[in-house]
């Protein structure tokens, strides 16, 4: 019980930090992947009196002229039509592709910019179903960022509290060791061992959580519904999370030892 009491605070703080970071990464990955997928297929239609070679709008990645010959061929059945003169009298149709998926506001601004060109007669943008999903994912992305910030803040407070407890529990022993000239490594060995144990337990718990979530039917169903192929590198993520966890453990130990030194 005593062992659990002296470890639970830091383990809880570390798992919270690691979980919020992992959630942030995954949600960002999903949103980015989904954005890449829908931006490939999303275009707006521009009708222009003159030929357009280039459009000076940052958000536009590509401009593609729509070939209307096929449509005109369909009119051939009406014998009395002069297709050549019709073709000459028609304006030019273009599809505009985007670098990134535009928000409704960005879309409005782009439309305004395009219509400022006197040769452009009409701009047609389409609301697609993906737009709503994308907006939903963007909201989740914002919420996750806020969630991560709050968790980091609360976890930092918990760690500070744990450092205070450690200072009380270990400062006398460290002081006595210092009286006999103990080097930094020896003085901090017990504390480092505790901190490393906590970091290790947190990583093990996190590995279990990641494995469970990414193999859960809810997660797999969501990814399937979004029709995206998202790759989560378990080992890469665990490596980074381990570095974060052990760094926090080392920094916490150093803070306790240095703050004790100042007290003398």
């Amino acid at each position: 019980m005593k062992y659990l009491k002296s470890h639970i605070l830091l383990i809880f703080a570390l798992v919270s930090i690691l979980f919020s970071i992992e959630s942030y990464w995954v949600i960002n990955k999903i949103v980015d992947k989904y954005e890449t997928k829908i931006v490939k297929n999303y275009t707006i239609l521009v009708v222009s009196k003159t030929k357009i070679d280039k459009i000076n709008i940052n958000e536009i990645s590509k401009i593609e002229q729509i070939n209307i010959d096929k449509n005109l061929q369909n009119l051939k059945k009406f014998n009395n039509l002069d297709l050549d003169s019709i073709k000459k009298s028609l304006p030019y149709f273009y599809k505009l592709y985007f670098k990134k998926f535009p928000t409704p506001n960005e879309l409005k601004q782009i439309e305004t910019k395009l219509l400022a060109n006197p040769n452009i007669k009409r701009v047609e943008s389409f609301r697609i179903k993906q737009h709503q999903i994308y907006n939903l994912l963007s909201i989740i992305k914002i919420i996750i960022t806020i969630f991560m910030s709050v968790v980091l803040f609360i976890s930092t407070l918990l760690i500070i509290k744990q450092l205070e407890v450690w200072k009380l529990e270990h400062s006398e022993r460290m002081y006595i060791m210092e009286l006999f000239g103990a080097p930094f490594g020896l003085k901090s060995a017990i504390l480092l061992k505790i901190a490393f144990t906590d970091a290790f337990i947190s990583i093990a718990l996190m590995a279990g959580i990641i494995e469970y979530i990414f193999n859960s039917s809810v997660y797999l169903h969501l990814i399937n519904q979004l029709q995206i192929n998202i790759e989560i590198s378990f080992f890469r993520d665990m490596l980074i999370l381990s570095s974060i966890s052990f760094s926090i453990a080392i920094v916490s130990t150093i803070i306790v030892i240095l703050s004790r030194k100042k007290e003398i």
Partner: protein
Amino acid sequence: MSKIVIGKDLYLGYKDEIIIENGSFSINSGDFIFLTGPSGSGKTTILKHLYGELKPKKGYLNIGGFDMTKISHSNLMQLRRHIGVVFQDYKLIKEWNIERNVRLPLIIAGVDEETQQKEVINLLSKVKLAHKADKYPYELSGGEQQRTAVIRAIINRPVCIFADEPTGNLDDYSAKLVMDLFSFANELGISIIIATHHLPQTFDIPYRHIHIEGKKIYEVS
């Protein structure tokens, strides 16, 4: 006899308070010194300067070749490996057993496990605590804890031992045992500096007496 501590024109004290003014003294190798004075006269203050917990405000204090006014943290740790300290409240590590507490200076010195074991058993037997080697400090009487603290200070044969009121909390019998241990350490060539309210009534070996009063240090002949 070589001087291991040289203090000249020293001003010692805490942040805003000077406790010792213009004090000079020296400690030779093999000395046995009683440092006496009324409460608050500065006995503990001098000892704190001797084991480097405080730095002199002014003057010159050299211990074992280190200038204590400028000593770095790493040099201080180096110096402390050749110094033993004993306190009135024993300062044993409460989560360690007696054997491990005694062993601490040898662990710090990097002595091999076998030698550590031999030395610890040898000294614990000398103070009749060998059978309590695996007990924790709270399981021992005050006298036993202080004997443990003294042999911890002796175990790595330091150049000198600074003891702050080592018998202050002990009954006469335990106090006598502790003083015998200091005599034993002195016979090994270790200089002993004991801060105490009163000189012991009976003490067999020759000693020096330094008295502090009114912020001044006097050598009593």
